[in-house]
């Protein structure tokens, strides 16, 4: 057997969630990209246009779920990259706490922004 080089614990929850979020992100990122670069060009984005999109509950929920999964995938990826770098002990706990707080803050801010765009906050 070849050696395992992955940063993740084999069969761990972090490993599995990283892959599940990845599969979701590939699809939604493709949608997001085509929506805002081909259907509407980024340079033509207006507040009114954004409001019109975000008012649809389905779009709103997709975008919030997109934010949550992307944040999880990014934070979990960074954390595992640092653990792989040799992070240990108290440093490991501090880094996990800082990354978790940053991730939750990003989700909170992003969700609030989406609510404002939809006119619900």
């Amino acid at each position: 057997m070849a050696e395992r080089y992955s940063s993740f614990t084999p069969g761990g929850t972090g490993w599995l969630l990283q892959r599940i979020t990845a599969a979701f992100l590939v699809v939604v990122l493709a949608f997001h990209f085509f929506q805002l670069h081909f259907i509407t060009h980024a340079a033509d984005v207006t507040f009114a246009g954004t409001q019109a999109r975000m008012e649809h509950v389905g779009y709103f929920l997709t975008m919030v779920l997109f934010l949550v999964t992307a944040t999880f995938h990014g934070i979990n990826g960074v954390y595992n990259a640092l653990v792989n770098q040799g992070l240990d002990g108290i440093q490991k706990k501090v880094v996990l706490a800082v990354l978790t707080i940053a991730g939750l803050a990003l989700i909170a801010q992003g969700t609030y922004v989406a609510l404002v765009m939809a006119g619900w906050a």
Partner: protein
Amino acid sequence: MSQSYNRGLIEDFGRWKEFSAGMWAWIFHKFTGWMLIGYLFTHIAVLSSAIAAADGQTIMLEGEAVNAYTGTIQGLESLFIIRVLEVGLLAVAVFHILNGLRLLMVDLGIGLEAQDKSFYASLILTGVITVASVPTFMQGVGL
């Protein structure tokens, strides 16, 4: 039979000349991952101008007072450097996606003997998609 040996610190970048295709794939995946999470924070920060916009605030864009959100995004999009960075972001995202799919295959044990070839394929496909996207990204912007 498994055999253990000390292969040294994996991320000893001083050993870059010894790196194989798989190692480069791993480094590029990390680099692009860092870029993408960094961008996500920046993206939400820029979109937060919607809060000021909903409050009725305006900013000046080309001598006109426009909605704070519209003005922020269109002001950024009018900059050549932002368009170049967007193409860079696309390249980074496409590579991360393609190599991510490659990693999934590696994890599942599919096509392990071709993992170096699939890395080169990811690189080439990233290059092609990036070049093909340039006209769309550069539309209507001057130097």
